[in-house]
């Protein structure tokens, strides 16, 4: 009777939490909901004569894996939230339909299964000399090979994480000394001139005038100059316009977005 009550309570909670996970816009909430489901399941494991698994569930799943999820969520931006506007035509309709169909099939089929009375684990654990001992025996005899092989899995995971996330430093990190040395060896030991914002214009994209009256090209940020060129925001003054254009044409490292668009076109 106790099991029944536990089941119903936890079943309702876990299904609710699961639905919450799916339908919550904020990823962090989803993660927490998942955590809730996992905890419910841990209890259900315990109820079903699987205390070891319940513990592992809490320690490994809820403790480690969920943390990893949360960690990555933080990395990616914790406040990011999904828009719930579906962009793929028909996707949601078919998703509901398919999921519903799947559930109906499974539930109907499972509902049709006539189960024999539960055998229970008492006999097995008795025979194996206790629950943990039985599990251990089983794990290290019958399933020892699989157990060993999971090591490959873990190594792969570690290696993969290293490959994808770790940036190996290939060169000495430039010290402040290196930087300042480089600066003084360059053309502009001093800061570059500021834009002519307040001289004749009120925008940062206008070059300053040098003493000889010519436009100072280096006074405009290249990115801004390029923006002007690309969007046709050049000033009326031909001299200034020319200066901006010239600045924009200087070799600029490509931004990621451009890179990616190039990738696509290739």
């Amino acid at each position, binding site marked *: 009777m106790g099991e029944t009550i536990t089941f119903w309570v936890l079943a309702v909670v876990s299904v609710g939490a699961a639905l919450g996970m799916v339908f919550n816009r904020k990823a962090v909430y989803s993660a927490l909901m998942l955590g809730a489901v996992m905890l419910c399941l841990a209890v259900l494991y315990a109820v079903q004569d699987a205390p070891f698994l319940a513990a592992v569930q809490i320690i490994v799943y809820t403790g480690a894996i969920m943390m990893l999820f949360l960690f990555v969520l933080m990395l990616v931006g914790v406040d990011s939230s999904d828009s719930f506007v579906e962009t793929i035509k028909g996707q949601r309709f078919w998703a509901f339909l398919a999921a519903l169909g799947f559930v109906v099939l499974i539930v109907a089929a499972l509902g*049709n*299964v006539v189960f024999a009375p539960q055998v229970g684990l008492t006999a097995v654990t008795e025979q194996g*000399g206790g629950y943990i*001992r039985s599990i251990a025996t089983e794990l290290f005899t019958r399933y020892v090979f699989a157990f060993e092989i999971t090591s490959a*899995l873990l190594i792969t995971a570690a290696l*993969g994480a290293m490959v994808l996330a770790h940036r190996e430093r290939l060169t000495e990190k430039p010290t402040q000394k290196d930087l300042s040395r480089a600066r003084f060896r360059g053309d502009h030991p001093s800061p570059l001139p500021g834009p002519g914002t307040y001289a004749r214009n009120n925008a940062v994209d206008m070059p300053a005038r040098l003493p000889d009256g010519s436009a100072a090209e280096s006074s405009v940020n290249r990115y801004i100059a390029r923006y002007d060129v690309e969007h046709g925001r050049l000033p009326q003054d031909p001299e200034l316009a020319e200066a901006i254009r010239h600045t924009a044409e200087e070799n600029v490292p490509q931004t990621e977005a451009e890179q990616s668009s190039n*990738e696509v076109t*290739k």
Partner: protein
Amino acid sequence: MNGDFQAPTIEYGTLAPLLVVFGAAIIGVLVEAFAPRYLRKPIHVPLTLLSLAGAFALVLVQVMGGQVPTTASAMGALAVDGPSLFIWGVILVLSFVCVLLINDEGHFVASAAAVPGSADEEEAEAHSGGVGHTEVYPLVLFAVGGMLLFPASHDLLMMFVALEVMSLPLYLLCGLARRRRLLSQEASMKYFLLGAFSSAFFLYGTAMIYGFAGTVSLPGINRAMAAGNTLDPLLLIGFSLLGVGLLFKIGAAPFQAWKPDVYQGAPTPITALMASGTLVAAFGAVLRVFWVGLGNLDWNWRPVIWVVAALTMIVGSILAITQTEIKRMLAYSSIAHAGFLLVGVMATYGSAERNADSLKAILFYLAVYGVTTVGAFAVVTLIRDPGGEAGHLSRWAGLGKRAPLLAGVFAFFLLAFAGIPLTSGFFGKYAVFAAALDSGTQPGDSMGGWMAGLVVVGVVASAIAAFFYVRVIVLMFFSDPAADGPAIAVPSMGTVAVIAVSLLVTVGVGLYPESVLGIANQAASSLFIR
């Protein structure tokens, strides 16, 4: 208390090929950890190649020595039987060849962590000297290890673990292309998400079957089926969801969608590995599950797989027609071939000896198709634009005039895919079709006429498929070359070797198929351990 711990027995001799591969992988990881950067590749290359060659030698030793086990190994986790050993040999050869491709510079990114297009990336490129991540080698070895495990698994748990061991490194490897990294990463993510999704199905299926049989060992399931009610919903659901996982891996419709995207995005040597080794391994697993585990259920699953096979062949062939990207086209071709192989999987009515015939056919097909595939992808790596491989088919126009030898070889591979006689592909196709028709004519086979129907669908699909292979040949030979056609990279020794081996096998088997057929026959005649 009866808790005496009995130490498990593990047949190290039998499992030696596996252990060599995994051992080499771990050594590779250690090399990554301790060897200086400039030494890593020089160590990895011989290590990887030698381990694969060694594993192959160990397989040979087992076969030659006639010590093919007749019982399951490693406490019933693995079945190292004739078909397994054959598949192992094939996978090892294919992966060896793929590693030769991997050795080539310029396939893998120098720093996967660097954002594409960033200064970091440029810097990493500049320092790598064209050598990408050397972690690729242990990852490949792990993947190969998984491939070896997958078809030899004797229980569903082992199979699940093997599936993951095989897949995880591949997910990673897919994302490591040096050029067009966005595509590569996208491929990686799609492969990963869908792979994880499908393996969840596999797992749920396993759970259902466990619920039905009380065990996940394949013979145990078979016994339970023989004893119990084969119409138990648990069994049927379990089977279908297992099927989803496996069919996903072989890329059968409607689970094929990942294949073109992943094949296109992944670095070409990895695509070659997936299209050859993974496919072989996955079919091994399919056979084991369908024939050994669910052998008594064939009355139920064959009509369903009939539809899947027909759909796969048709979808693969038809969708390939309008492809403009060579790797994508080959991916669809791979889907179509998976369909043809499924025709062979269908051919399992009748006695065990009959099954041996079909098994022989599938093993043969897998071997020759794998080799040809690797060769084709090796050629693909050589046709380059400034930004990487010249994947777009329009760039291949007139290749026959610019590089007649290369184009000729590629055309030959394509003809082999199309199943033109006097190529290995023809005999592969013939073998599975013959097996299917043969099984269809067994008295009492309810699928009798349907098997013939499936074969007809197969030949119609082949004819459609021929169209796009031929289209590439037309482009290469009958069109005039573009003015700024792609460069033909000077192939490295490794690539030359890959292409040469593939060509030799494709031609040799095409002229004298008995060479491989005999071995396949021998492997198949010992049948699966049940």
